């Protein structure tokens, strides 16, 4: 039996409201991602998609339920240990890329080195990945000098280069044209095919179509499409 990369069980997340009554965002949610899974998560705004990503990425402590990444519960760890765990196991891709504006393309990717233990192979791996995504000529450019598609590819390489086997992507194609979207989705699909797992939040049918599995989210619960 293959071990799940991400195992979410009975996950609940409530946000405190000003009225004093908590607002439930995720309800009794179960989800598991195995190596090779590329799951697209769809749903209306405010249904809890981003909250699910944050909980799954060891960034937002759930109100109830459990999150296991590579069979470990990150929320049982101290803050420092959870940071290190996140750096080693999870990669994030954001709709707005969130590249550090004053760092070059290569330095943005090398940021992973600040989080985890020293990785001597990181520069080589990063350059290889950038080369595969057609960015080898942009190594020393700053984000402001790149197109949006190039910026998102850099963000993707940053998520992958750290050696994570779980990628959490929040609307990764939201700001991209069709060609760049295709490149990004192909890369995610390849990552999954090579044994990783991807959980991607998207509104775009073309993006969700490229995923291997599609789930709808309504009122904090998941439904198969």
């Amino acid at each position, binding site marked *: 039996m293959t071990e799940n990369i991400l195992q979410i069980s009975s996950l609940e997340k409530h946000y405190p409201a000003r009225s004093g009554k908590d607002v439930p965002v995720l309800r009794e949610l179960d989800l598991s991602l195995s190596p090779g899974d590329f799951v697209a998560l769809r749903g209306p705004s405010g249904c809890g998609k981003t909250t699910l990503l944050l909980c799954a990425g060891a960034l*937002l402590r759930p109100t109830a339920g459990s999150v296991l990444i590579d069979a470990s519960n990150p929320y049982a760890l101290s803050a420092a240990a959870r*940071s290190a765990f996140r750096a080693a196991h999870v990669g994030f891709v954001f709709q707005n890329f969130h590249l550090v504006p004053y760092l070059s393309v290569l330095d943005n990717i090398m940021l992973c080195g*600040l*989080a985890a233990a020293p990785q001597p192979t990181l520069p080589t791996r990063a350059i290889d990945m950038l080369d595969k995504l057609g960015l080898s000529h942009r190594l020393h450019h700053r984000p402001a000098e790149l197109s949006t598609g190039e910026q998102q590819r850099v963000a993707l390489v940053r998520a992958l280069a750290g050696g994570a086997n779980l990628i959490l992507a929040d609307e990764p194609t939201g700001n991209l044209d069709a060609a760049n979207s295709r490149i990004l989705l192909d890369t995610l699909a390849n990552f999954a095919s090579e044994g990783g797992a991807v959980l991607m939040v998207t509104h775009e049918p073309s993006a969700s179509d490229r995923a291997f599995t599609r789930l709808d989210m309504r009122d904090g619960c998941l439904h198969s499409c």
Partner: protein
Amino acid sequence: MTVCQLVTRELAYRKWNFLLAILAVAMAATTYLLTSALLKSTDLTTAALVSRKVLDTERAMLRLEDEMRKSMKGLGFNIYIFPENQDLGEVYDKGFASKTMPETYVEKLANSSIITVNHLLPALTQKLTWPEQKRSIILIGIRGEVPLAHRNPLEPLIDPVASGQIVLGCELHQGPGFKPGDKLSLMGREFTIAKCHPERGSKDDITAWVNLSDAQQLLGKQGLINEIQALECNCVTIDRLAEVRKDLLAILPGTRVIEIGSQALARAEARLHAGATATQELASVKAQRSELRVQRETLAALLLPLIALMGLLAVIVLTLLNVRERLAEIGVFLALGIHSTTLLAVFLIKAVVSGVLGGVLGAALALLGIAVCRERLFDGHAIAALLDPSELAWLLVSMPVFAASAAWVPSFWASRRDPAEVLRHD
């Protein structure tokens, strides 16, 4: 990628924020150094003024001493020591002492360590009738000044008279028409006139000076004298006679001491008054400078905390602005697994760098300020005297600590941000 590389890249990217932080620290450092230099300049000037004043006073006192010594010499002997039990009323009445004392008294005095009198002249004085000329004269037998054993010999106020010679006052040689080299007879003994004094307008005009031993023989008082003349010197207080008497009576108990010469008294009073005035002036200078020091200290006490507070607030606000501008970045850093302690280090290192550079810039500006305004504000003192290297070193160490302390709260707040909260709202 290291923390330092990250800090360096960010500093280069957000230059203005960084430059403003440096300027805030530099402002505090410059103010501190300039204030310190100003206070030091006040102290140095005060010390120089006081030492110059002390020197001036000492010179003036020496000059007065010298003038007084000369005046006293010009006036002649002003201290007279008479034998024990001598009635001073008789001295004032007759002009000489009827009592006598051993000539050895003068040796006793000369061999003592007395410092309040000098120029000791033993004499035998008597008013008598010059039988050959049938007129009253004052006969004074002198043997020359006896030097004090503990002092170098001084130029005598009066020259000794050799045995067999005589010096005549104006009245004594003008009438009979004596002149130096002439021979005359006094109380049956022949003397050669050594010198004839011009008119002095005093009892000197009827005085004849002979050698002490000749006078003792003529008057039948061998080995005796009836006065020791001296010159008062080195007295500290206005009551000089009391000082002289105290010293003399300790050596020659029972003797009677009088002082003559009101001009000498006036000089001495003037000298003491000048001394007191100089001391007063010195105290006044000290008081003025002390007041200036207090004024500058008060200014520093107000200015320094104010500038330090402004610098502190400037660094806090600039760090806060920087942190707010970088909230999304902080969220991503945390999401990527960068630990909050590393993030805190990123902010604090930036503050420390601002502190180091601000300290250096502040020191440079202070040096420049002192160099430019050295004459106008710092009384022309050398920079090295105004700025202590240890003070500069202390400043260069404390400024980074100052900047890091100011940046601590906003940096800590930023490093403890919840990444989920940041990313969820982005």
